């Protein structure tokens, strides 16, 4: 079974600074990769996903992620964050019938 490691449990950053949230996975088969965001007291919603094709994936709210097969990584980036980006971010990996989520990274954007 695959597994996901989110390398940082908390990431504090100042408004308008760039941010990178790190995600590594392990799997013996081809995988699909996702980033979800959870705002306070809400369910998760999809930011972006990689299924195939270009390794650079663009998502909503200015986020993007790059699939790196050799490093088994799928890091999430945003060049300039806003206060409203404060949330919990989850990386997930799946094959055709098993999806696993990481433990989450809490991004806090400070003014």
């Amino acid at each position, binding site marked *: 079974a695959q597994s*996901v490691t*989110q390398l940082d*449990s908390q990431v504090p950053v100042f408004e308008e600074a760039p941010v990178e949230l790190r995600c590594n996975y392990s799997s013996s088969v081809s995988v*699909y990769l*996702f980033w*979800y965001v959870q705002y306070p*007291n*809400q*369910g*998760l*919603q*999809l930011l972006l*996903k990689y*299924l195939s094709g270009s390794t650079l994936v663009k998502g909503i709210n200015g986020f993007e992620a790059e699939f790196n097969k050799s490093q088994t990584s799928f890091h999430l980036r945003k060049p300039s964050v806003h206060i409203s980006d404060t949330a919990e971010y*989850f990386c997930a990996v*799946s*094959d*055709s*019938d*098993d*999806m696993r*989520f*990481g*433990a*989450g990274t809490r991004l806090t954007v400070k003014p």
Partner: protein
Amino acid sequence: DAGITQSPRYKITETGRQVTLMCHQTWSHSYMFWYRQDLGHGLRLIYYSAAADITDKGEVSDGYVVSRSKTENFPLTLESATRSQTSVYFCASSGTYGTDTQYFGPGTRLTVL
């Protein structure tokens, strides 16, 4: 309105009691899922269902029971609640498993005293 709803949003119960959490989706998605969210563990799959009357265990299924008599509903039952089942429970649905986006409900916060 289209979407996925969960009820109740908050529940407090006592050890040993039976509790049922409800989930309803209006998209006619084939797949439905139950997750629990605990600090430090992220989301862990409890059960999932590929269609009406087809269910399968996830990573942490012990102590839970599900049913799916209708495509749109997927209730989760804790037959005899324990304190370790205190958690936030999320229901989700998707068209397929693996590549499709999962759409999540707002969650149910369950406290077992």
